[in-house]
């Protein structure tokens, strides 16, 4: 009886105990003490909880007892979890820490223009590469509408902030591409080798970049292949300039994309008047493939590209009475294998190998020039996420380049030049987030070049501070070194050259709102150790030294907006640059011929729903470029007239999967002059005659039909155009 009573009592007590309600209350605030509204507060494992009010206050009752875990979660903040005594948690203030992984945390933006999925602020959207009038699917041409680049129409490569084209390095999935451009010669513009279709992200840095990247004085272009394609499909392209065929297959853990294209400019050259005589039109056969395999903790990618191109033409040359013939054959192969994965706690591993092989056979007048380059890179990078606030990365690179060139004038001169270069580099870099508003990156790169027999240490540092929800400042500083270009070092003897050097200072301001981005960037670049030579042309008997120097300073502005008018997107880039150098065979400090002081690009895109069309205009302007007139005493005293080109494109959706695309460049037919070539010797009157360097044709036009075959009827090739 006694036990029964005891049981009943204890049972009753227990029941009361179980159902006793305890009140939990308090206030949720952020680090500044401001109330946090909408936070979810609850006792872990129970249904008891509440949402914080507008004043951050909360109060709820719980039937749980003793020590429990209280959880406070809100998207923008780190989840707060603490063991509490439920009877004793009243009117407590809980401070939530900002989640630095949240999307609005500060990122260092000095020098970097990003595009793609992972970019927090995209200056270019993936589609832009192909829908920007005048770009014709050329990644490089689309990038030339961004600030900090120079339009150098007779070259086609990227010239960044007073740097030569060779000062920009291209990386695919973190591995350098030794030969990123199609082969060309004698003032014929080239284009990027890569079709935009296989890349999901592009980061274009115009300076101050990470210690991970070396051997680039001015700029790096980082292209990342897609991790995962959308679906199985076949793409067919019929164009006035050739044919294209692509196929993508997706399996459970892997996928394969293959693209091939045959380009022949004969029809275009027949329709549009050309400024040169073509013996055989520009032709190329190219193919690209990407294979991806997903492991549980990582992804393996294999990218391979092959490209064979040729052309044959006669060009007027001021030094010869007759036109001079150029016949070029280029074969290029590039392979890149990379693995990126995670292991342990917070470790990330990236490793890869890249190999590029390029062979050129060039006949210029009576001369034969044959060259080949083998270039490889090995790379290993480790990154440890110590906490949300500190990440450390370190890695090593090994570059191997072998170059050989044979020259034969089919007479008395036969020479052979070449070099072997091995560069080993190590780098380390720390990413520190002091708060959501203040971040810094500090790194160091150490490299050793066997050909030059030298070791370089290059420090890099950058810092970003967010002043308000939509605007921030960044500052970047860095030292950069690069082996002199092949034109010089193929004549290298006894480690005679040294690396060329540049130092960057960049101050950046960025303002972003949904649909709007404004950037302003001021920079100063200091060049030293530039190669100089004492002859008219670079030759085996030139005397070289590394005493050249120079500077570049300027201001870049960028504005992109999609809110002004429905279905209209536009951006405006303006660059001002002041740059002088004493390098090559310059007798004094002077502005090199590829620099125009002012550049302006305006890009617009307008979608007309009723017409199922997207129409775009791009206008590129740059002020005159200097040239040297040997008839004048002052060096580089001439200036060309300004450059202007207005391009137009029109994409029309016939049906979802069939697109008609039309584009034409330089509608107004501006007679652009890039510079002047002067005769080597004066004529009978003692005057040096000249000839204008002009585009091979004033206009380019393109008409194409693109057809996608897939199960998903919504996909099309708009993105490939």
């Amino acid at each position, binding site marked *: 009886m006694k036990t029964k009573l005891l049981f009943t009592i204890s049972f009753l007590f227990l029941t009361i105990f179980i159902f006793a309600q305890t009140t939990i209350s308090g206030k949720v605030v952020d680090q500044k003490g401001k109330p946090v509204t909408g936070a979810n507060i*609850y006792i872990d494992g129970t249904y008891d909880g509440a949402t914080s009010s507008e004043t951050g206050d909360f109060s709820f009752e719980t039937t749980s007892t003793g020590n429990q875990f209280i959880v406070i979660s809100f998207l923008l903040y780190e989840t707060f979890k603490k063991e509490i005594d439920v009877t004793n948690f009243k009117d407590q203030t809980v401070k939530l820490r900002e989640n630095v992984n949240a999307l609005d945390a500060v990122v260092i933006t000095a020098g970097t223009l990003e595009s793609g999925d992972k970019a927090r602020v995209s200056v270019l959207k993936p589609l832009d590469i192909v829908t920007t009038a005048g770009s014709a699917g050329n990644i490089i041409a689309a990038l030339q509408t961004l600030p900090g680049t120079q339009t150098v129409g007779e070259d086609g490569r990227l010239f960044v902030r007073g740097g030569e084209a060779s000062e920009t390095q291209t990386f695919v999935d973190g591995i350098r591409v030794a030969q990123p451009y199609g082969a060309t010669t004698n003032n014929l513009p080239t284009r990027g080798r890569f079709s935009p279709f296989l890349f999901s992200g592009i980061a274009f840095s115009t300076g101050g970049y990470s210690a991970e990247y070396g051997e680039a004085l001015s700029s790096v272009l980082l292209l990342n292949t897609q991790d995962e394609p959308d679906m199985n499909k076949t793409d067919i392209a019929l164009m006035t300039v050739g044919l294209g065929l692509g196929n993508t297959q997706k399996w459970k853990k892997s996928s394969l994309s293959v693209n091939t294209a045959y380009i022949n400019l004969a029809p275009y050259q027949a329709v549009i008047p050309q400024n040169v005589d073509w013996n055989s039109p520009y032709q190329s056969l190219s193919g690209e493939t990407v294979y991806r395999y997903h492991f549980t903790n990582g992804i393996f990618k294999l990218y391979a590209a092959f490209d064979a191109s040729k052309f044959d033409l006669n060009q007027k040359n001021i030094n010869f009475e007759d036109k001079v013939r150029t016949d070029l054959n280029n074969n290029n192969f590039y392979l890149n294998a990379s693995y990126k994965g995670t292991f342990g706690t917070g470790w990330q591993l990236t490793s890869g190998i890249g190999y590029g092989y390029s062979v050129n056979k060039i006949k210029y007048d009576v001369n034969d020039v044959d060259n080949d380059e083998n270039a490889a890179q090995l790379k290993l990078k480790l990154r440890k996420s110590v906490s949300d606030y500190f990440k450390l990365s370190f890695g090593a690179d090994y570059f191997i380049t072998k170059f050989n060139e044979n020259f034969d004038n089919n007479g008395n001169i036969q020479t052979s030049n070449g070099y072997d270069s091995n560069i080993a580099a190590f780098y380390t870099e720390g990413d520190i987030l002091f708060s959501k508003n203040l971040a810094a990156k500090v790194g160091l790169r150490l490299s050793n070049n066997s050909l030059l027999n030298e070791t370089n240490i290059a420090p890099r540092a950058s810092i970003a501070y967010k002043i308000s929800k939509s605007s921030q400042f960044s500052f970047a500083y860095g030292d950069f070194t690069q082996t002199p270009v092949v034109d010089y070092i193929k004549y290298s003897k006894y480690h005679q050259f040294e690396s060329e050097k540049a130092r960057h200072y960049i101050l950046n301001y960025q303002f972003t709102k949904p649909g709007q981005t404004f950037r302003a960037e001021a920079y100063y670049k200091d060049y030293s150790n530039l190669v100089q030579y004492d002859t008219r042309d670079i030759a085996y008997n030139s005397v070289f030294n590394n005493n050249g120097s120079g500077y570049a300073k300027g201001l870049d502005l960028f504005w992109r907006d999609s809110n002004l008018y429905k279905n209209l997107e536009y951006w405006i880039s303006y660059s001002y640059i002041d740059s002088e150098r004493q390098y090559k065979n310059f007798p004094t400090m002077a502005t090199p011929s590829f620099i125009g002081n002012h550049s302006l690009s305006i890009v617009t895109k307008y979608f007309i729903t009723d017409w199922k069309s997207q129409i775009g205009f791009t206008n590129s302007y740059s002020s005159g470029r200097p040239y040297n007139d040997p008839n004048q005493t002052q060096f580089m005293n001439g200036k060309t007239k300004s450059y202007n080109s207005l391009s137009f494109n029109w994409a029309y959706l016939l049906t979802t999967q069939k697109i008609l695309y039309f584009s034409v460049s330089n509608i107004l037919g501006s007679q652009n002059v890039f510079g002047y070539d002067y005769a080597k010797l004066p004529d009978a009157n003692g005057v040096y005659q000249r000839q204008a360097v002009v585009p091979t044709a004033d206009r380019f036009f393109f008409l194409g039909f693109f057809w996608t075959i897939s199960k998903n009827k919504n996909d099309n090739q708009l993105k490939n155009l």
Partner: protein
Amino acid sequence: MTKIITAFTLFICSLLSAQTQFEQGMGKAFELWKEGKNAEASAMFERIAAADKTSYLPNYYVALINTTAVFTEKDKTKIDLLLTKAQDALDKEIIKDQNNAELYILQALIYTGYVVADPMTNGMKYSGKVMEAYAKAKAIDPNNPRAVFGEADYQLGGAKWTGVDTKPLCVQVDKAIELFGTFKPETQFSPKWGLERALEAQKNCKK
């Protein structure tokens, strides 16, 4: 004997009360949602999800509430946060069960949220994924009205841009409405939404 009976009753009681607790909690969350208190409803579902890991429904509704909020959200900066939250909640359930058509339908809806937020940037990227998710849902449950309707509705939404023929899509909408008529949700809280939107789409089809 009494002891045994008491203990047994107690056990049953606790079992019952546990069940009603889930029902009560879910009921309360639905009420909040109906009242338009999205954040509170989502928070309630989150608490249930944290306490009761056996049912996929609480996380499902966390994801659904945050995704549908995107379609009416005017502050564009919030869209990413809402969709990230939805995706996180959904991921917790997809990992446990890859054979639930409703989860893939919701996945398609999250991707649709990205497309609606910024068609120029996300249209191309997510369209394939939307269609793929609906295809998975239909492979698991070909007669799920939300899968049939969602797939047709997404393409109808893009029709003015893509110029796709709407007739076969409208046939699918009609079929979905029929399926809604015969659809029996598994439990009182299981997904059963979609008929109203389908009727709306049917009206537009007949225009």
